[in-house]
């Protein structure tokens, strides 16, 4: 499916600097329209971590830090869709933007729309469009399902894991998963009790690693620790997590394709009524691709 004339016009206008059309372009991508744009060089940071730890507030700190230094910062803030109603409450942006935000900050809220992994492959196209339109730093905030948020590795070069004071017993910290994937780790709400212990628990669980990431103790409210964390983010020589990144990209693209399969609804109907088994469903969908 080639890009239509309308899409092309909007893309061109966005590339020429129209903010309105950039916004419309992102909607077209989100709703599945074909947008062809060559892969761009971009600076990306994925922010993940459990709900309620203050990811959005911290992103607000970054946004202020970078925009005050003249960078243009774009944020894609992802929140979960309700599986029942299909709707979503997208509340991240309110913690990020302030009256000073202005032209150098662009925040877009996205609902997961129940994509597997919480992040759809269209995020990659959005990142390319934002980079092509001159956005220097692109931050992707994930839903924060905690331990299973690998999908972010498909889209972000650097990963920041944010945690909070209530979650720091050593058992939690040692569960393998995103904690091993993160380039930088921050324990937010340093003004609250338990945050120092949480940071220590994470440090000790990583102490066996060759090059463990620094665990920063920060407070997004008063800014303490934030500058040091920002420097760490900027200097991050992220590991070429080539294999994992390739794997997550592949799975993401695979899911994307599956959800657009023309036979999907027919196969789902058969599966739902028990007329075919799951194995037969998989086979049927793979076969009709040839």
């Amino acid at each position, binding site marked *: 499916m080639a890009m239509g004339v309308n899409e092309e016009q909007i893309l061109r206008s966005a590339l020429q600097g129209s903010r309105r059309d950039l916004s419309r372009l992102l909607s077209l991508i989100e709703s599945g329209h074909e947008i062809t744009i060559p892969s761009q060089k971009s600076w990306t940071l994925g922010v993940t971590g459990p709900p309620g730890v203050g990811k959005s507030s911290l992103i607000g700190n970054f946004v202020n830090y970078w925009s005050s230094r003249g960078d243009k910062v774009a944020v894609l803030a992802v929140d979960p*869709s309700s599986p029942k*109603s*299909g*709707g979503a*409450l*997208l509340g991240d942006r*309110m913690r990020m933007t302030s009256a000073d935000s202005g032209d150098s900050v662009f925040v*877009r809220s996205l609902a997961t729309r129940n994509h597997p992994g919480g992040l759809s492959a269209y995020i990659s196209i959005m990142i390319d469009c934002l980079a092509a339109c001159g956005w220097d730093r692109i931050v992707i905030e994930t839903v924060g399902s905690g331990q299973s948020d690998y999908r972010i590795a498909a889209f972000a070069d650097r990963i920041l894991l944010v945690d909070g004071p209530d979650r720091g017993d050593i058992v939690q910290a040692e569960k393998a998963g995103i904690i091993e994937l993160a380039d930088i780790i921050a324990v937010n709400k340093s003004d609250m009790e338990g945050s120092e212990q949480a940071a220590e628990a994470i440090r000790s669980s990583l102490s066996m690693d060759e090059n463990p990431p620094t665990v920063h103790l920060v407070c997004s409210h008063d800014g303490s620790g934030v500058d040091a964390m920002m420097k760490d983010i900027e200097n991050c020589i992220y590991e070429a997590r080539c294999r994992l990144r390739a794997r997550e990209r592949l799975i993401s693209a695979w899911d*994307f394709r599956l959800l657009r399969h023309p036979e999907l609804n027919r196969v789902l109907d058969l599966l739902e009524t028990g007329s075919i088994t799951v194995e037969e469903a998989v086979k049927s969908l793979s076969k009709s691709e040839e």
Partner: protein
Amino acid sequence: MLPQPPNRLLEGSRLSASIVEMKVIIAKPGLDGHDRGAKVIARALRDGGHEVVYTGLRKTPAEIVRATMDEDAAALGLSTLSGAHDVLIPAICQGLLDEGLSGILVFAGGIIPASDRSALHDLGIRAIFGPGTKTSEILDFLNEVSSRKDSGEPVGVGESSKWRWE
């Protein structure tokens, strides 16, 4: 029997023409700190299948217009209980027009005296919901808006239609 989930859960794309669910901004302009109503509405809209961006408190008209643009929202709901509606709402409407957003549907809620409503409707506010409005009424309103849009009627803040929700 469970209700059918909307299309977007079964298919990744929204290429079908008629989409009832919208992206809606719920905004609190000015210094009004009462947000319970706005949050109740936001949740009700989510339960009705809409994607709702809640802006949080104390937003300026410029910030609200900017959010509407960046989020590419189809609708904007303004919640005001502090009496500043006659200054803030016109400023927001003008801001939307200035940014080429005349097609956005704008509605309002909160404490807005009956005597002030006509002026707001003349500015393009299509509905004003007072205290005690059932959340189902707002969902019905948005459904009505979708139908009108589908049949080509312009219901945006800067558009010609004289329709309003009673």
